[in-house]
């Protein structure tokens, strides 16, 4: 037993040892390899700020401060001391300018004997500039170099001055505009030459019959100085190193033509560092676009900080091509360079268009719009059938205004002028009171065709006029009354006693209206009038809208109190029209079955309970009328016009409670109603 145990553990031991100490049957080999990589970090210094470049890691490429890098750098003035400093600029493009005072324009001198007359135009105020005065100084030998260099000739805000009692010689003038902060412009220059007396006589003989003043005008004053054979090194472009700026930005151009916006100041400048120290003056002469003999000169003056030579020129306003010459002088007053080119002055398209609109179309559109809006909105349009009617309405309107302010006495209307065929009142109609055959008084009927005269005692006759109507009426001749009116007047004398009023109703015959013809084709007539009225309304409303839009544009481009007032008037027209239509609500009398309106029907209003006729009105050709009564209870009747100038009562309403005195809904009549 013990032996079995021994051999068991022995075999077990062997097995364990076998596995632990057996030689490895597979082989492996390995190799270690180092892989290296160098990463560097360097800027390309190409002057452009791109990608991950920032001012911190690539200061030569990126000039932004705290805003970080930009893939597309902005070029502009990066000097915070410049007047056109651009805080968003990444790269300086030498456009920094340090003075923004514009020069006077059209500075010229004319000689008159021993006097030199100077004239100029002061610069206009603009954003950042308030004009204060002009200071003119004079020197001999060369142009003044500053506002305090030379004899003071003028210092005020006018636009002309005279330098008197001068000896023969050449006088150089410089005019410096001054702003409210006491800063000066670079200087506009001109010169005047006083000739000796004998030479002056010769000059007079020479230019007899001509305008001799022009001899001293139109020359480039800088041409008087010799041009030595020395050239500025041209670094770039023709005008280089000079730059033309408008609104702080450099104008891009090639060749000798510089495109300029005529609405904006023009700055010509060059960096102080780009020109040699020996230079003294840079002069610019701009010639008139149409007359080369006229020219205006300026000098580019270095600013106080010695950063740039610059001159600011007022807006040209007139478009055109202006030849320009730039002269560079050394300290010996010798010209060492002269550059010639052309300023091509243009106005912006919008401004050109607006100038045309403002000058021509705008006033017409605005006025027409007002008139159309008032006419259509206040229901006048339907009453204007001729120019004469329009004239009468205008006269009446003025009369109303004068009456309202007490300049004209109002007359109480007592008589009515009306259409003998339709019985509708005529508005407007011109009524004259004649005395001894001559017009003594006149009146224009109101909206209800009424007129009134207050006459001194005497004998008068009346006369009525309206386009397309005949007076006296033949139709109702001899009748004292008709269905609507009594006390009819056709002709004859009227005796007016003390305190008496003329209260005659005057029928007038329509010339182009025949009731029988109308009755035959009532539907066609109604349709025609409806369409005509619709077209008229559309035209008038269209003109109103056009005028309103034009007025708004005028206000935007030329803001002023006047233009604001125009807008207020437009809005008032709309408001008045709305109010008018509310008060003069138009209702229609129509056939319930056919829907057709009942034209020229007489609508009478009776006070309920009393059965007393209060008012009557005749519908128009489209069966419409409006009537304003006192609030209360009424009933109305409708009488339809029949053949033979008779009327037949076709409707009587129930009692209506008119709380506002206005009928709110159309009157719809059943054809089979029995009255």
């Amino acid at each position, binding site marked *: 037993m013990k*032996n079995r145990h*021994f051999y068991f553990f*022995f075999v077990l*031991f*062997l097995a364990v*040892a*076998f596995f632990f*100490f*057996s*030689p490895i*049957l*597979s*082989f*492996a*080999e*390995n*190799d*270690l*390899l*180092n*892989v*290296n*990589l*160098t*990463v*560097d*970090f*360097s*800027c*390309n210094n190409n002057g452009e700020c791109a*990608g*991950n*470049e920032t001012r911190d*890691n*690539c200061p030569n490429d990126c000039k932004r401060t705290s805003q970080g890098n930009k893939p597309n750098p902005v070029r502009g003035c990066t000097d915070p001391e410049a007047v056109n400093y651009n805080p968003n600029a990444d790269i300086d493009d030498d456009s920094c300018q340090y003075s923004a005072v514009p020069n006077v324009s059209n500075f010229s001198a004319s000689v008159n004997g021993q006097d030199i007359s100077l004239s100029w135009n002061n610069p206009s105020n603009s954003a950042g500039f308030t004009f204060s005065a002009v200071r003119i100084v004079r020197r001999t030998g060369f142009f003044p170099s500053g506002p305090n260099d030379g004899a003071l000739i003028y210092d005020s805000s006018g636009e002309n001055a005279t330098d008197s009692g001068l000896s023969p010689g050449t006088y150089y003038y410089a005019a410096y505009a001054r702003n409210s902060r006491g800063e000066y412009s670079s200087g506009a220059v001109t010169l005047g030459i006083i000739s000796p007396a004998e030479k002056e006589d010769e000059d007079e003989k020479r230019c007899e019959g001509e305008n001799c003043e022009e001899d001293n005008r139109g020359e480039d004053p800088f041409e008087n100085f010799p041009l030595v054979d020395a050239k500025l090194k041209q670094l770039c472009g023709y005008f280089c190193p000079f730059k033309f700026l408008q609104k702080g930005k450099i104008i891009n151009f090639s060749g000798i033509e510089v495109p300029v916006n005529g609405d904006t100041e023009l700055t010509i400048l060059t960096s102080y560092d780009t020109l040699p120290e020996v230079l003294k003056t840079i002069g610019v002469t701009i010639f008139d676009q149409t007359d080369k003999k006229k020219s205006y000169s300026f000098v580019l003056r270095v600013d106080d900080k010695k950063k740039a030579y610059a001159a600011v020129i007022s807006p040209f306003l007139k478009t055109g091509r202006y030849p320009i010459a730039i002269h560079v002088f050394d300290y010996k007053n010798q010209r060492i360079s002269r550059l010639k080119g052309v300023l091509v002055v243009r106005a912006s398209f919008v401004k050109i268009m607006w100038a045309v609109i403002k000058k021509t179309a705008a006033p017409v559109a605005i006025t027409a719009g007002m008139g159309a809006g008032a006419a259509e909105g206040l229901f006048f349009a339907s009453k204007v059938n001729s120019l004469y009617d329009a004239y009468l309405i205008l006269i009446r309107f003025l009369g109303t205004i004068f009456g309202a302010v007490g300049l004209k006495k109002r007359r109480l209307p007592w008589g009515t002028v009306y259409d003998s065929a339709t019985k509708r009142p005529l508005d407007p109609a011109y009524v004259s009171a004649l005395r001894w055959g001559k017009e003594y008084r006149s009146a224009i009927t109101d909206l209800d065709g009424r007129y009134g005269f207050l006459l001194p005692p005497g004998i008068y006759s009346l006369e009525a006029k309206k386009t397309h109507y005949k007076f006296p009426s033949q139709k109702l001749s001899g009748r004292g009354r008709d269905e609507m009116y009594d006390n009819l007047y056709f002709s004859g004398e009227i005796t007016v006693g003390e305190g008496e009023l003329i209260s005659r109703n005057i029928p007038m015959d329509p010339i182009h209206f025949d009731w029988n013809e109308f009755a035959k084709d009532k539907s066609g007539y109604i349709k025609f009038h409806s369409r005509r009225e619709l077209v008229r309304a559309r035209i008038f409303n269209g003109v109103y809208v056009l005028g309103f839009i034009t007025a708004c544009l005028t206000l935007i481009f030329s803001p002023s109190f006047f233009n604001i007032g125009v807008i207020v008037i437009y809005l008032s027209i709309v408001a008045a029209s709305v109010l008018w239509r509310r008060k003069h609500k138009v209702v229609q009398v129509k056939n319930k079955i056919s829907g057709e309106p009942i034209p020229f029907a007489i609508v009478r209003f009776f006070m309920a309970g009393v059965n007393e006729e209060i008012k009557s009105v005749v519908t128009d050709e489209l069966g419409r009328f409006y009537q304003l009564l006192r609030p209360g209870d009424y009933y109305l009747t409708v009488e339809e016009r029949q053949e033979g100038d008779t009327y037949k009562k076709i409707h009587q309403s129930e009692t209506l409670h008119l709380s506002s005195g206005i009928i709110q809904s159309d009157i719809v009549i059943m054809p089979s109603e029995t009255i």
Partner: protein
Amino acid sequence: MKRKFLQFLIFFALIPAFSTSVYGYVAGSSNYRIQFDSVNFGGGLSNSATYYQESTFGELATNINASTNYNLKSGYQQMNTVAIAISAPADITLSPAINGLYGGAATGEAGWNVRTDSSAGYTLAIKASTDPALQVSASDYFSNYTVSGSVPDYSWSVSASANEFGFTPEGTDIATRYKDNGSACNQSGGSDASDACWDAISTSNVTIASASSGNSPTGATTTVKFKAEVGGTALKSAGSFSAVITLTALAL
């Protein structure tokens, strides 16, 4: 007592036998070592003009047996020499140097020749010593290449905001994972397009090449291409980055 002594003696007598097995040879002197021996009744090296034969008589159940998990070589003749060797290329520097401000890519390659006379072949695996592999320090590194799926990317692609490091093996014995069909990787029986099938290096062995037979005496070369890229907007600070790569050749 006597029996116990004999048992003890047998036990200790057997220890040297197993001890020699630890050293890989069964007998030796200062001049020789016998790797293996066998107790049998015959055999030896036979040869003619056209053959060499080494045979052993008297052993039972001799064979090479294999399964998925083991290779068993039974018998004296199976204990012949299995050797594997791997070349040692020089360290490489990826080029060109990358400007971390603007971005860019750098590449380099090294080739390993693996030679084995193992009739079962070999495997070659790659791993890095650190994660991420290419780094200056644990806080300044190139990320391991991001594979878009579960197999290597056929084309190298790094986003503009990333910095990555990867590799691709090329050679006749590359693993299926790195074989392609012109547009996708992991293609059994596929080809080996140049600069295709990019993968990330991890700190675990990944088999990049294998063979199922010996290739002695010429061996087979597997070239590993390395690539690092800084994306256009990534912004990488300056530095000297390095990765320690281990290639392990295993004879089967």
